[in-house]
């Protein structure tokens, strides 16, 4: 099994051939993406190598599982910072994103370990938390930007509802619905298309590692359902929490600046 997944440095280098093709294409077609592609590959390489090295330490049999939980806490913090960086125009997004991903972490890991779907071990805690928090983070960015954009661009409509005596919850509901749909649809679509077009990462990894496809499918399904639930939870927390922040206690919509650039 070990040899099946150990591609070695040569194998890793070979996988860069397609990146080289993409860079050449970008250069020939003057897309101007060469630098971005090379930078993203280099950055992913460094990040994952460092992560792999750190995981080796944390996953050592003699290492305390407390390190794994600390890792999860760090993930939540980094997710919050990443969301803030990707949605700088959204006021007060950092604490909300941290709260949303923390809730997702607690609920999803609670379900996973509470129902004994996976055993509580360092090798399960970190990757599972990573998948839940990582997927949630991406959707949280979309939800935060869409909620802010909807309320800013459709201010007149929101205020027309407020002027009829509607509460901020009622006045913002159609816009929150729209923003949440936009944030959730990619996850729903990928859940629908799974197995038909692409084989998801966890399942592919398990099959490559020699696990039987049926067992791999079961694991993948459990993960996918949990990810969908996590994404929906985090999007709801951020959308509702953000809407609360963007209205005053007396149901006025605060002024929302347009994003720079």
């Amino acid at each position, binding site marked *: 099994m070990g040899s099946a997944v150990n591609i070695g440095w040569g194998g890793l280098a070979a996988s860069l051939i397609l990146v080289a093709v993409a860079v050449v294409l970008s250069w020939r077609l003057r897309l101007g993406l060469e630098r971005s592609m090379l930078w993203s590959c280099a950055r992913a390489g460094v990040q994952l190598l460092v992560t792999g090295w750190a995981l080796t330490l944390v996953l050592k049999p003699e290492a305390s599982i407390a390190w794994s939980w600390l890792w999860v806490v760090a993930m939540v913090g980094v997710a919050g910072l990443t969301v803030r960086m990707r949605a700088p125009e959204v006021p007060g997004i950092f604490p909300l994103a941290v709260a949303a991903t923390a809730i997702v972490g607690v609920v999803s890991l609670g379900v996973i370990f509470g129902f004994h779907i996976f055993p509580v071990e360092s090798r399960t805690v970190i990757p599972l938390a990573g998948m839940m928090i990582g997927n949630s983070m991406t959707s949280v960015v979309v939800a935060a930007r869409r909620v802010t954009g909807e309320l800013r661009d459709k201010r007149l409509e929101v205020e*027309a509802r407020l002027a009829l*005596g509607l509460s901020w919850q009622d006045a913002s509901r159609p816009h929150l619905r729209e923003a949440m749909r936009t944030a959730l649809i990619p996850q729903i679509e990928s859940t629908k298309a799974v197995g038909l077009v692409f084989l998801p990462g966890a399942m592919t990894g398990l099959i490559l590692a020699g696990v039987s496809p049926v067992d791999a499918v079961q694991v993948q399904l459990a993960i996918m359902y949990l990810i969908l639930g996590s994404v929906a939870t985090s999007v709801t927390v951020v959308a509702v929490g953000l809407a609360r922040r963007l209205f005053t206690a007396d149901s*006025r919509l605060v002024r929302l600046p347009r994003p720079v650039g």
Partner: protein
Amino acid sequence: MPTPAFAFEDASVVVADGSRILDHVVTTVAAGGITVIAGPSGSGKSTLLRLCNRLEVPTSGRVCFAGHDIAGLDPLAHRRRVGMVFQRPTLFAGTVRDNLRVADPDASDGRFGDVLDQVGLASSFLERTGDDLSGGEAQRACIARALLTGPEVLLMDEATSALDPEARHTIEVLGRQLATDGLTLLWVTHDLDQVARVADRCVVVLGGRIADATESAAFLAGRDAPDGHDGHDGRDGQRRS
């Protein structure tokens, strides 16, 4: 002396970047009839109007409605007493009936028909969507929606500036009819001809201040306000037309 509909008591609005939108406004708006708030674009007249239904709050000073500080009133209940019509017709997605339901979810089609009749639209409009209406029809549907909350005051924020002359005329006639029926109208406009057509009283706002008598006369005559003005008594800016 009867209690005014609105009293602005040294009300100022300063936004986050430090810009002073309204500067120590002192004035009153009598109940009944049509009071026009006139002034050039950016003078602060819309902000003055938005203070009346608490879509804005004063940074300092206070605004009273029927003798009560608006800050102490329940904002949602207050907004149902003080309806508002915006510059562009703002119909929500769905039919006119769906729109009217937002204002009063429990009302019957009969009630909806009555309020449409009040603004000069037939009951058949209930089935139509905003996309099927002309600008004037859409604005009248918006007025019908505002009337469904049973307001005592209707705030008109440049409510005809996006309409063609014919639609503008129908809204002005409707406004006069509503005032005759007992509603108090506050009508913001920068159109001097409209001031002459609809105003029972006029407050002129210049640079975030209530203009004094001289400035108001100059503005309403279509001339620039005299330079070098310093200090004023807001009540001087009120004119009876």
